[in-house]
Structures are given as C-alpha cells and as structure tokens.
C-alpha cells in the first residue's frame, strides 16, 4: 500500500509551485504483450508512461523466432517453400512467389508467360486477402467490430479459391523453383472473376463503415504521424511508406512478373498518419482487383513451368513412371535438389506488408549456403521507439493496427 500523504488545500494557486514535485507522481512502466490482442501475435512493448502519455517505448521481438535462415541452409530449395508460408502467414502465396523468384534469379531462369500470369494473379489475391485482414482488424482495434465481420466473410471466399488452386486454405506452398505446383483448375479463373464482381460492392460497404466514420476518424487522424524523412531513414516499406507520401512501389519501379503490362495506380498518402495508412490499404484492394481482371482477360496459354529447366523443375508424374530419363531427373531433383550455379543474389518484391527480400549465397548444388530474409514487418516495427513517445497509451492499439505487421515474418 502506498503511503497516504496529507496536502493542505488552502491557497492552491500560491502552493502550485512548491507542491509541484509531490503531486507529480512517478513514471510508470508497463508491458503490453507478448500475449495481448493489440499486438496481433507475440510482440512485447515495454513502455514508460507519464500519466497517460508514453515517454519511452521499447519493442521486444523474437518470441516467434524459429531459425528459418538456419533451416534454409540445411535443406534443398524446394523443401524451403513450405517455410515461406509461415513468414507472412496472412499472405502465404505472395511469399511463395517472392521466394521462388529469388531462387530463379540465381539460376537465371526465364518463366513462360502463363506461369508469370498465374503467379501475378495469386500474388494480387494474396494482397487482397492480407489488406482485408489489415483493414478489418484495424477497425476492430479502433472499436469498430462490423467491418471485421464483413472482411472475414470475404477472406473466407478467397480461402475457398486458394484451396481449390493449391489444396490448402492457409499454408499454400504453391510455387516450385521453375514454376508452380499445378495449373489452374478448370473454371477457376471464372470463379475468381465472380469473386471480384461480388466483392467490390461489399468492399464499398465495408469502407463506408470506416472512411467517414466520425469515431474512427477522430481516433486515427493525426495519430502516429511518420514523416517522409523518418520513413526512409527507418527503412519503412509498403503501404506504410506510401501513406507518408513516398511513391515507392516495386511493382511500378522495378517491374517483375510482367507488372508493367497492366494498368494500375499506386495510392499515396499525404500526412502519414494512421488514417492515411487505412486509406492506402483500402485503395490498394481496389487496384488489385483491377489488376486481377486484366490478368484474367488476357490469360496466356502454354506451360505453367519452365520446360527447358530439366535440372530444376520436376517432370510430370506419369512420365516419371514410364520413362527412364525422367525417372533419373526426378530422383536427382528430389535427392540433391535443383541444380543451381554458384553466386549471390538479392531479390526484392512488393509484398502486401512491404518489401520482402531474399539474399541467397550459393556455392552451387541444391542447398543454399546462406539465406537471409529481409522481412518488411521487422523493419516497419523498428520505428516504434521513435514513433510512440508522445502519444497516448490508448492510441497504441490503433497505431499498431495501422502498421499491419505479422510477427511470423518479423521474427522468422
């Protein structure tokens, strides 16, 4: 029990100065997380409070560290694909694609148009799925429950599409080095189009619940403002960077997978506060739908894997069982892994959460010598010690919600 102090009231104005120190109280230290609904996973924030205002914030990460980089050094390139599902587990398809492309760049492999189109399509669907979760959960953090229900219903439909395509709702492991696991099923593209058609009105309805919602605006506008300079200095990427007003989208600036063939806009914020981050995400969903429609409109025919990459992509199963050459080829790829040249490669792609990069050092053979994963959430979170001080404790929920991070990716 704290000791009770007697303070005579009398002339408060005259005493205000002399009693100031006594009335000041102590700074309070508070832990948010590692297991707290605000932190969307296992982030822990150690904060010092002066009343309701944060004076110091130290994020403590690593609770979900699984040693993915060490694991990668000990298995063949294809065996690592399922581990990429578990990085940003909100958008596993986008991780699969980025990882496969990094390895293919090491091999100098060109992909046929159909394979690129499939990959681009699933990346954009993953982006929609990720941003829908981002928006829904963010609304929930700010006290708006309804959008969450809407967006989760929509994500469920996307999961259905993913399951049909990859066999799994969540951990898709869809790509292989040199292609994808299987071609799109019959009629699937039409079902994706149907999803887009029925999704847009629902998206409008959902965003209507937030965009001009007085309470939501009051809680997010002007909160957690990141300046352009800070955003660059701290290596923020993705929608969080674009909300600050910096027009960096690798899909436009360093096009891969044929992004340059499609028309889409890159939404950019003006103030860099929590509200802008929401607006950017909402608009990106609309742009992704625009891209998806264009891709399906001109969906190329042909192979869904690199046919000339005999030492990298596994042959079809029926050929393995009937032909000697394919049997050996299959055996070699399974046991030794895809044949890669020696070298170093660093590949980055615009993932839903930001720029995901893979740095691969190869000494040849089927196992990487070193693989570093540059995860966007890790970099985005590193700004918290700079961003939090000065804001209210109650703003932490919207602040973290607006950054839209995933701890599986941050801790790897």
């Amino acid at each position, binding site marked *: 029990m704290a000791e009770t102090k007697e303070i005579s009231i009398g002339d408060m104005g005259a005493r205000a100065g002399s009693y100031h120190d006594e009335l000041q109280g102590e700074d309070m230290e508070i832990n948010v997380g590692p297991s707290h609904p605000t932190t969307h996973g296992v982030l822990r924030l150690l904060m010092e409070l002066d009343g309701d205002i944060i004076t110091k914030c130290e994020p403590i990460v690593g609770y979900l560290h699984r*040693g993915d980089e060490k694991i990668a050094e000990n298995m063949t390139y294809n065996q690592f694909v399922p581990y990429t599902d578990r990085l940003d587990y909100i958008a596993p398809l986008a991780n699969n694609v980025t990882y496969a492309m990094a390895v293919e760049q090491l091999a100098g492999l060109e992909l046929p148009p159909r394979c690129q189109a499939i990959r681009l399509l699933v990346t954009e669907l993953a982006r929609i799925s990720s941003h829908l979760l981002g928006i829904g959960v963010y609304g929930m953090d700010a006290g708006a429950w309804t959008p969450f229900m809407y967006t989760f219903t929509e994500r469920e439909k996307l999961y259905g599409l993913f399951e049909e395509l990859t066999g799994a709702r969540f951990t898709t492991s869809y790509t292989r080095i040199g292609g994808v696991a299987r071609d799109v099923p019959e009629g699937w593209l039409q079902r994706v189009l149907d999803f887009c058609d029925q999704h847009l009105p629902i998206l409008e309805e959902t965003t209507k619940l937030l965009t001009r919602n007085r309470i939501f605006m009051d809680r997010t506008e002007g909160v957690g403002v990141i300046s352009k300079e800070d955003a660059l200095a701290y*290596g923020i990427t993705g929608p969080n960077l674009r909300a600050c007003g910096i027009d960096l989208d690798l899909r436009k600036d360093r096009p891969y997978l044929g992004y340059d063939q499609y028309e889409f806009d890159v939404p950019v914020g003006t103030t860099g506060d929590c509200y802008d981050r929401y607006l950017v995400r909402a608009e990106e969903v609309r742009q992704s739908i625009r891209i998806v429609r264009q891709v399906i409109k001109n969906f190329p025919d042909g192979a869904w894997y690199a046919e000339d990459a005999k030492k990298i992509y596994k042959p079809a199963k029926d050929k393995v069982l009937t032909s000697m050459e394919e049997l050996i080829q299959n055996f070699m790829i399974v046991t030794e892994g895809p044949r890669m040249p020696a070298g170093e490669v660093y590949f980055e792609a615009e993932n839903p959460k930001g720029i995901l990069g893979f740095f691969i050092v190869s000494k040849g053979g089927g196992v990487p010598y070193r693989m570093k994963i540059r995860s966007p959430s890790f970099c985005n979170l590193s700004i918290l010690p700079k961003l939090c001080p000065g804001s209210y404790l109650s703003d932490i929920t919207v602040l973290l919600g607006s950054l839209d991070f995933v701890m599986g990716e941050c801790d790897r």
Partner: protein
Amino acid sequence: MNEIVESLQPRFAGIKPRESSDHPAIQCPVGFILPLIECLRDEFDYKLLSDVTAVDWGEEESPRFSVVYHIFSIKAAAHIRIVADCEDDENPSVPSIVSLFPAANWHERETYDMFGIRFEGHPDLRRILMWDEYPYYPLRKEFPLAGIETELPDAEIAEETRAKVLAAPMMGGPFVAKEGEPMSRSEPRAKDQSWTEWSKKTLEEE
C-alpha cells in the same frame, strides 16, 4: 553496371568491384564502410537501407565473416551491394552505420545476435531475436541445426521447473543430400543416424 564503383575508386583507395550477377557490388575494406555509405547516401541518392546481414564462410576460412549491406535508390530504382570482410576471425567487428541509417539499428543487432559480429559505435548492441543471456551465435556454421542444450533465460523459473532449452528431436536429420557428393551418398539419408527420439544424442557427438 559497375560505373558507380569506377567513379568511386579514385576517392576510396582499396575498394574493388565485386563479382555479381544482379546488382552493382563493391568489395570494401572495413575502414571505408562509413565514408563510403555516407557518400552513396548523400551523392548517389541511395537513401533506403534495405538490409544488413553477414555471411559465415566457415571455420577454416579467413577472412571468415563478411558483412553485406544492400541499399536502394528510389530515383534509380536500383540496389547496390557492399561487402566488407571482417579482419579478425575470432572477434569480428565492423563500424556501425546507425548514425547514417537508423534502420541499421535492428539489422545490426540481429547480425550481432546471429553471428557475434560487433558493430563498433552501435548505441544499443544487444541480442534481439534470442534472449540476452543466450551463450551461442546460432547462424555460425559450427552451430548444429538441432540447437544446443541451454539454461532457461529466467533463473527463477529454471530452478522451479528444472527445465532446460533442449535440442530439437530431429532423429538425426535433416533429411537432405549434401551438395556435390556422388550419387551413392546423395540419397536423402539422415546425417547422423546414431540417435533418435528414444535414444538421446550424447553431448560428445556435437
């Protein structure tokens, strides 16, 4: 591709172009890291630090550790790779670039955590992913994949529960063929079949 490297060479004696198939790459002596990166940031518009990491080339190699920086230029939409070999193999260290890029703070802490490379001048060089008292550097090549038995981070809990951080039961895995070996040895066999979940691995074998 290496025009930048050529234009920088007169100013920083000792930097060399590094072999690379994707981005321009510079092999840089440790002493030039700070001025070189500052010059790239201010004069060549490399303003977004993508990544700082390290590579362990193996216990027998010297130099054993290389620190690798990737910096992105938004204007040119291009990366540059800078590689610095640490001079000391036992106690590797490089200068910290946190003063130039605050983003390097966590990257350098992670590299220190995983490789034990010290970043001189870093404001707060602590472990970031592993807990502070952890005694090993997990991404060094001699560290086994299964992990090493270690004390729990909290002494009080350790005493109460008598639990330890245990090596993963991998039944002698991982089940991968080693690269570059003949077919007969390339089948996916366990690297070490002497231990399973039921017969524990003894410490000497590490």
